[in-house]
């Protein structure tokens, strides 16, 4: 039989190099003459095999249920997941890429060092090299802002995780310090993972973090500064009695991580919450403690939402209903709402909801259950690339500050070649939107203005279907603040005319085709990191359209689909509806910093962070444009563009320390 392989065409043989079975030979004409004689024998064989097969199958079914229960003890669940979930919401998909590569006219893109080194940011936090992910334990202590982060000291991909550390006077100019915690105990030998700091009333610090033990079980550990008089908090001590918390009954050993900052209960205890899941229901467990060493688990959960999967990096904090300052994590009261936020492992989105906290039993309910935490309809801090975010209360300036991990959207080969991966978003203040009462508002911290150099003011009227170059010189490090007005005539035409069909509810940044698709009243905005010929560009824009209630709705988007000609980077179109109240002008702010673009709509009601990797819109070739792709409307744009200085983030040296201490 083997010799008949030679009859197969070569390409067929190549097709399945991994098929472990030998190829079935094709019909050999020479065998047909023997066929008739062999048939009765074959028939007998067939029947006996058939019976054997049936017998085996019956045996399989009979014992199947019994054996399944044996496997229930194994720590991994065996649930069959729905196709919908497998359709995959992770944006890093090779489906789209495969289509591109299949097109013979799109050659693979070869990155050179000039293009790759341009990608490094000038004023966003990132270590000198290698991989970073979640922000950890941010805090203010003895005059310094501290930032810790998940760090791989050995590679530009996730792994071997330890706690990186840096300090700053102003959340913008950072000095890298030595690694704060390494994986040197049995209870964190497989990873020193995410955690949060709590500052006690006497000013001392406790740090709770997740360790992956030598058996890869997720536990919570306690650590504190070795020398509280050292403002740089260089050295940390792990509590000898660690772990202080292990997965409770009913919680799987790999579903228990990311403890929060603690808050004081009315009984005077400290309370924390830790995200987890029960089957597909995302939950947040609650523990009380007096000393951070022993804990009692509450029977109630802080909250749970079905079908949201594992909740990572849970955050829980109060926001004022009446004032725009931040609140210490322990604050409660009638003028306060509480935010529950979680990072959804399934979708890589950070979701939050506004609600009410009940201290007596440690529970929380959302104001609007239709947009509960983790549901696809629920609010997100940011509609772009933004995950594992964490806030802290900055007692120095009385504000709540938000950090977030901004990963790469390129290939890991590029990350390896350039030697690094990931940045942090610019820290943002977070407050409740007192005008709507339903959402948060974020804004880059004030201190970022210290990076502003020269600026130019513009007032430009842009007719429908025009693109206007904005001459600002260098366009890779910019801060843009802009106000837009649509001419009244065009607005009235759309609102008053009953025959104009509502389209706002159907519009989505992601699916409606990007900034080249023209509507009556939009899209209009800026195109950043654009080449002169617009062969590469990243538009950030508003799209205004009529809603079902005949009122106008505004959508805010960033379109990265043409940000680069490279075909090994992800180029989504991000964004969401942005609430615009009566009498408000349309405003946007954009921070451009090489391969990261942070966009803020309506003062930070809707935020979009994007990673872009242009191949030619880099260095001096990157330009800024203003555009109006509307069919009818004329836009008046009034804006200022600042050149942004570098933050000169660098490693610790005596000089650097002295320089920072002087400020």
């Amino acid at each position: 039989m083997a010799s008949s392989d030679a009859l197969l065409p070569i390409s067929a043989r190549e097709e399945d190099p991994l098929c472990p079975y030998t190829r079935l030979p094709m019909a050999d004409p020479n065998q047909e003459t023997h066929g008739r004689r062999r048939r009765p024998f074959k028939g007998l064989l067939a029947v006996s095999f058939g019976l054997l097969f049936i017998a085996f199958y019956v045996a399989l079914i009979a014992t199947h249920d019994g054996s399944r229960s044996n496997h229930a003890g194994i720590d991994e669940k065996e649930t069959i997941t729905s196709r919908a979930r497998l359709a995959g919401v992770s944006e890093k998909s090779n489906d789209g890429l495969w289509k591109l590569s299949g097109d013979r006219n799109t050659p693979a893109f070869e990155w050179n060092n000039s293009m790759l080194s341009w990608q490094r940011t000038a004023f966003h936090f990132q270590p000198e090299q290698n991989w970073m992910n979640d922000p950890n334990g941010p805090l203010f202590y003895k005059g310094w802002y501290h930032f810790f982060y998940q760090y791989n000291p050995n590679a530009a991909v996730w792994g071997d995780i330890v706690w990186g550390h840096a300090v700053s006077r102003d959340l913008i100019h950072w000095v890298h310090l030595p690694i704060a915690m390494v994986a040197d105990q049995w209870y964190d030998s497989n990873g020193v993972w995410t955690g949060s700091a709590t500052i006690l009333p006497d000013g001392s610090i406790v740090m709770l973090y997740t360790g992956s033990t030598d058996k890869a079980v997720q536990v919570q550990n306690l650590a504190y500064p070795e020398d509280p008089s050292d403002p740089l908090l260089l050295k940390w001590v792990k509590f000898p009695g660690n772990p202080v918390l292990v997965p409770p009954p009913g919680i799987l050993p790999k579903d228990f991580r990311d403890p929060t900052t603690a808050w004081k209960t009315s009984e005077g205890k400290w309370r924390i919450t830790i995200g987890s899941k029960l089957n597909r229901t995302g939950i947040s467990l609650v523990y009380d403690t007096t000393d951070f060493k022993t804990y009692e688990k509450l029977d109630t959960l802080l909250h749970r939402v079905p079908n949201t999967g594992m909740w990572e990096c849970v955050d829980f904090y109060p926001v004022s209903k009446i004032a725009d300052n931040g609140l210490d994590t322990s604050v409660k009261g009638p003028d306060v709402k509480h935010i529950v936020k979680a990072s959804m492992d399934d979708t890589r989105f950070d979701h939050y909801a506004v609600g009410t906290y009940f201290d007596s039993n440690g529970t929380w309910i959302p104001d609007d259950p239709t947009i509960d935490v983790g549901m696809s309809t629920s609010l997100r801090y940011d509609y772009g690339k933004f995950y594992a975010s964490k806030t802290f209360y900055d007692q120095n300036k009385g504000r709540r500050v938000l950090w977030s991990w901004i990963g790469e959207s390129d290939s890991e080969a590029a990350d390896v070649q350039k030697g690094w991966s990931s940045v942090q978003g610019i820290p943002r203040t977070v407050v409740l939107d007192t005008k709507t009462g339903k959402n948060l508002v974020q804004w880059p911290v004030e201190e970022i203005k210290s990076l502003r150099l020269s600026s130019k003011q513009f007032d430009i009227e842009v007719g429908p279907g025009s693109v206007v170059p904005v001459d600002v010189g260098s366009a890779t490090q910019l801060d843009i603040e802009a106000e837009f007005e649509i001419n009244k005539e065009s607005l009235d035409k759309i609102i008053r005319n009953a025959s104009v069909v509502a389209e706002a509810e159907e519009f989505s940044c992601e699916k409606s085709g990007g900034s080249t698709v023209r509507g009556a009243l939009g899209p209009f905005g800026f195109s950043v990191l654009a080449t002169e010929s617009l062969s590469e560009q990243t538009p950030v824009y508003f799209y205004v359209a009529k809603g079902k209630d005949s009122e106008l709705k505004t959508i805010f988007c960033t379109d990265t689909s043409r940000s680069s000609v490279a075909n090994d980077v992800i180029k989504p179109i991000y964004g969401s509806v942005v609430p615009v109240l009566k009498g408000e002008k349309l405003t946007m702010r954009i921070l451009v910093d090489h391969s990261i673009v942070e966009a803020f709509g309506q003062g930070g009601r809707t935020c979009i962070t994007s990673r872009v990797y242009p191949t030619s819109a880099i260095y001096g070739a990157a330009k800024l444009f203003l555009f109006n792709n509307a069919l009818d409307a004329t836009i008046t744009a009034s804006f200022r563009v600042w050149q942004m200085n570098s933050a000169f983030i660098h490693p610790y040296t005596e000089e650097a320390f002295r320089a920072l201490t002087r400020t």
Partner: protein
Amino acid sequence: MKMMKVMMLIVMMMMVSEGSIIEPTCKETPDFSLCVSLLNSDPRGSSADTSGLALILIDKIKGLATKTLNEINGLYKKRPELKRALDECSRRYKTILNADVPEAIEAISKGVPKFGEDGVIDAGVEASVCQGGFNGRSPLTSLTKSMQKISNVTRAIVRMLL
């Protein structure tokens, strides 16, 4: 010959031992038969849990990447005119071996599968980019196609761990 195929099917079903989750797991992937054949070809397959199955497939990715790199190295002499594309492929496949695979193994073993998903997806991306460097079919086409297929199947299984 139909007879032989029936016998093969029976043999295959007999290889699926009691308690194996290979079949129900593979049903939820984009390529059932590829998934089953890969997992059955590994002795650990029939008693592995979902994590274990994912790790077996990552091993296959590793093996295929090594095989492809060897093929690439061999092609420099045979097809010198393809040097530029081969250089890019070499870089891409080394990323699979040195970055994607270790990342995925560590992430899945330690219960943070999302980083494993990243590594697995990237393996498929790197293979696509390598293939894109040639104009149409190349000596590596079937190998890169395999990597994409295995990457898709593995990714589906890693998603089940989230």
